[in-house]
Structure formats: structure tokens, C-alpha cells
């Protein structure tokens, strides 16, 4: 997994609440058997007309947001399905950080596993960042994961919380499966104890 330390980039404002996974990546694009290549379909129905032309009003179709690396979003971002295609599409587009007041659980989890940092902030901070983001090219902000800080275009900083284990994995680019396989002995012991105490679960 790609490491995440600091990120500086354009932030795109998406104030709509409840942006769901069907909006992030419509199911039409779930038919892939690969992880890559979904970025062009990110927010497909909001971003393109039926004939494939771009909808000029959609934020990621406007300069400078075409190159956004960060999204500032309305409440409850990523609700809906468990599809990891949502973070894959986001990452493939080049976005590495999503900031909102709240996220759906599965999506939140899936982000960390794909090198994306989801940041939860109080409403006032989101309003401020949304405002910053709508200033276009002047909307460059910096995310410093090590120090858990967001630096706005006007030099102000906002602190954020992040789960220490998730932070460690992001900074080091660690993969969960590899980490867990180091716990072989503990898993084996558990399996033996389970077979004895709940034999009906063994098949």
C-alpha cells in the first residue's frame, strides 16, 4: 500500500449530504475483476450526461477541481453498499483524503485499507473548509497526518483525530493480512479452544 504522510492539494467542495456508494461508483462499473481504472467513472451519473459528455456544473468537471486530491463532503459520506470499488475509484481519480462530519462505517474502514485518509471534523470546521474549498485555485490545503493537522489556505490549522493503529498503518503503508499472519499462534490456539467449546461450528 502507498504510504501516507503529508498531502498538499486542491480540495473540492461537495456539500450534498448522504453521498452514497451508488453515487460514488454506479453498479455498472462493479463488473470489473481488477482494482484499478475506476477513476474515470468516479461519481459517474453526477459527472456525465447520458451521451458521455461532461456535466459542466459538476465540481470535478471544473478547474481547478479536476486535479482535486481532497474532498470536503456533507454529512454521512459513503453510505450504502460495502463495495470497495468506491474507495478504489476515489483513489484512482487521485483523491487521497475525504473530510466530512461523518462517514458510513464500512466505507470508513475501506478507505484506510486503500491508502485514503477519512477525517471526521465538527460542523464548524467543515463549514470553514467548505468555504475555503469553494475558493478554487486558492483552495490548496495540506494534510499532515504525523501531526494530525490540516493547514488551510490562510495559514490557519485544524487538528483532527485518527485511530492510532490506522495512522500507523497508513504512515508505514502496512497491509493488514501480513500483520495478522504474524499472529498465527494466537489464531491456532483460538481454533483449538473453539473446536472444544463449540464443536457445532466446526465443519
Amino acid at each position, binding site marked *: 500500500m502507498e504510504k501516507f504522510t503529508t498531502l498538499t492539494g486542491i480540495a473540492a467542495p461537495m*456539500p*450534498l*449530504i*448522504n453521498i*452514497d456508494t*451508488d*453515487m460514488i461508483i*454506479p*453498479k*455498472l462499473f*462493479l*463488473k*470489473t*475483476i*481488477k*482494482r484499478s481504472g475506476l477513476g474515470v467513472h468516479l461519481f459517474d*451519473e453526477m459527472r456525465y450526461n*447520458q451521451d458521455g459528455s461532461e456535466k459542466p456544473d459538476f465540481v470535478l468537471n471544473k478547474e481547478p477541481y479536476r486535479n482535486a486530491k481532497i474532498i470536503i463532503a*456533507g*454529512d*454521512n459520506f459513503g*453510505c*450504502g*453498499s*460495502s*463495495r*470497495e470499488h468506491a*474507495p478504489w475509484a476515489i483513489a484512482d481519480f487521485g483523491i487521497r483524503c475525504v473530510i466530512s462530519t*461523518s*462517514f*458510513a*462505517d*464500512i466505507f470508513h*474502514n*475501506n478507505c484506510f*485499507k*486503500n491508502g485514503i485518509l477519512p477525517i471526521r471534523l465538527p460542523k464548524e470546521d467543515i463549514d470553514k473548509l467548505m468555504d475555503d474549498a469553494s475558493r478554487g485555485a486558492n483552495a490548496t490545503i495540506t494534510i499532515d497526518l504525523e501531526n494530525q493537522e490540516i493547514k488551510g489556505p490562510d495559514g490557519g490549522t485544524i487538528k483532527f483525530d485518527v*485511530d*492510532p*493503529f490506522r495512522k500507523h498503518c497508513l504512515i508505514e503503508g502496512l497491509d*493488514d*493480512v501480513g*500483520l*495478522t*499472519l504474524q*499472529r498465527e499462534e*494466537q*489464531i491456532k490456539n*483460538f*481454533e483449538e479452544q*473453539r473446536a472444544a467449546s*463449540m*464443536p*457445532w*461450528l466446526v*465443519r
Partner: protein
Amino acid sequence: MGNPRTLFDKIWDSHLIETQDDGTSLIFIDRHMVHEVTSPQAFEGLRLAGRKVRHPELTLAVADHNIPTSDRSNGIVITNEESRIQVEALEKNTKDFGVPYFAMDDIRQGVVHIVGPEQGFTLPGATIVCGDSHTATHGAFGSLAFGIGTSEVEHVLATQTLLQKKSKNMEVRVEGALPPGVTAKDLILAIIGKIGTAGGTGCVIEFTGQAIMDLSMEGRMTVCNMAIEGGARGGLIAVDEKTINYVKGRPMSPKGAAWEAAIEYWKTLKSDEGAVYDETVIIKAEDLVPYVTWGTSPEDALPITAKVPSPAEARDAGKASAIERALKYMGLEAGTPLNEIEVDHVFIGSCTNGRIEDLRAAAAVAKGRKVADGMKAMVVPGSGLVKEIAEEEGLDQIFIEAGFDWREAGCSMCLAMNDDRLAPGERCASTSNRNFEGRQGRDSRTHLVSPEMAAAAAITGKLTDVRDLLKEGN
């Protein structure tokens, strides 16, 4: 005995391998269901890393999302190439890694969340995961069941464990009894309407109270299925006699001495007296009527007797603009009575309402009636076995005579990944679980309802209070 524990605490504790200082826990997974859409990249990951599936026997794979629901008597042809590749990938992956797989032409094939309970793969007190958010369904059996992403699918395949932080535990207590004509689906829509799509975020919801325990296992599955639409990771319901009777004698459920030991334990699977929840929401069942959704989020649920809301009634600016957007998308005017909204399609099926009891309920409404002119109504059984039982009972004939299309098992128009989908602007009364923009086809419009309400809408051509229709007689 220690402190009183909730049902969630009990299952969690019995699956905990270890916990790190920050609360990240490694838990053991008893059952893992796999389908074609969220697994190819997980198997690819295993291959690249040279890893094996740790417990193929605790894994069960079935293709459901992509497969056609048209007549299968002359074999199954998936015309869309990408869909076909995805199903073929599942066939190959399960073969290469030794994972049990129900092929497309196997009568046991169906929607994963219908197949698991039907086969006795789903067991009380177990941890159950699947790369699909509606895994919450299995919580109806007093099992801790939740959806995971593809990276986690890979993690479970490789290690049979998951890294999790313990969720909070919310209780939704439904007091009293549901009035006649009000179903499990209406109840869960009402609950989501009350708590909102983010109401359960970070929680596992235990559904308690008389109205819940009165439900059949099918009804409980409908409720838990949609816990995710209330933002929760999982839904849970205590084990009782109904649970045990449902599991008994299923092909994969325990037998003999193991069965006896299991039921002793399963009977303890309820929250202790005095156990503490992080939050409790109380719903009065007596007050409920049939519910429908009007908008593009499951929380846009209202009694059928209500009217389409206006942005002016919203609790805040964010919700007001969401209402405005939903009205535009749905092609609705604020103030329109919900029972005047005309629909041109009806879909009965999905892991929410594609079980035999759902089909029976819809057939009871359809019996001796005819679908409205121009109406396209389809019934898609949740599995090949549900279809078989329905045909034995003659339900297929009732539907066909009423003018419904009787189809083969699959996810179908619940998410329209196969050919069953709406054209732009078409409007459907659907027994599925999501009414998101584009869910049933680009620019399609979905109203979520119970099977009874869906059948009633098919007959009248508009959203209808099924209680009125039944009152009128034929």
C-alpha cells in the same frame, strides 16, 4: 457470573482472539459467504501473495448479483460480457482455492443472504461476514453478521479473522403488537424513518420487544437486513424457539450430539437482565401503518397515508436541499398524497423480501386480481429452493394469472446489474432495500414497500394502502 451482558457482548467475547491497547481486536470468523462482485480482487490478492484460503469449509460461494433471471430451462446464458467474466472468475477462484460453490444451475443457487439461512450455514451465536452490506440479515438468528469490503474479504479468506474495533450497541425496542396489515418491512422502514440513515452509525442494533419476537424468522430477517440502511453495521435478535426450529434439520446445520450441545448454548443467546446499551430507541408498534419511501434515501419513509414532504419542513439546510434534490429526481411535487403516486413497475424479490413467506403474502393480495393496464410487475424468488416451494404451493400460477412475470432466482432489479432494470424516468414499487439515485437503472425512481404493498400497487397502478384494497374485496 460477572456483569450482565448484551447479546452483542456475548458473541463478541466468545470470538475475541486478542485486543491491542487501542482497542483494535482480532476476532474469529465462523462463516464467510462470497459472491462474484466483491471477491475477484480478494482472490487476486491471495494469488499475488501466494496465500491459501485458511478454512475453505467455513466459506460458501454463490453467484447472485449478475445472473439473469430469465427462463433457465435451456441453460443459462449471460449476454453481458463483463458479467459473464465475473461469474466465470468466481467459478475459477472457488475451484482453485477449494471453496464450496453453488453453481448457477444448482437449485440451491440464490441471493447469498437467502441461501445461508436456508442451508443452515447461518447459525446462532456465530460470526458471519460477506462482502455485502446486507449481511446484517443473518443477525436475525442471534449471530453477529456484518458486511465487509474486498480487502477484508481477502483478510478473512487468508486468516479466518478480522481486525475490528468493537461497535457501540444500540437497542431498538418495539413495544406492543403490530396492527393487522402492517409487516416487518413497514416496521423497519418506520424505524429508519425515525433514526435516519446515519442513526445507527458505529453501532450494532439489537431489535427487542414484543413486536420483534412476534415476527417469524422471515420477518426478523427483513428487519435485520435493513439495519444497514439505518447506518448500523449489523442487526441482532435474540434466539428463541422459532430460531431453533428454523435451523433444525437444514442441510448444513449440526446433527446428533453437536446439535444437542448447540441448542443448550443457543438458548443463552439473549441479553441479560440489566445489561446496558449505549443507546435505546423505543417504537410503539400499535401506532404503525404501512410505510413507503417517497425519496432517494431509505430514511425518506412515511406512512402511506401521508403526503410528499416539502423542503420547508426540513430540520436543517442540508436536509432541505436533499429533499429538493430528491423531489426533482423523483419527479414529485411536495404535498401530493403518497397514495396518488402512479407506478409503472413492480418488483417483488431481493434479500429483503424474496423469501417464501414474502411470496405467500404478495400472492394473497394478487390472488383473483389483475395487474393494472401497462403495468410491468415481476416476481423474483430469492433462491431456487424458494422458487420450488412457491411452485409446489401454486403461487407461481396465482402470480401468472394476475399478470405478473414469474422469474428465476437472483438479485435482479434490486440493483439492476443484470438485464432486469428500469429505463430513465420509470417508477417502481419495490420490495428491495435501497431507493438511491440510479439504483434500479439510470434515472430510475424507486419506492420501497412491503410485498403486500407491492402487490397492491401492481393491481391499482399506484402506491396503495393494501388495507384499503383488501377491505374492498375483489
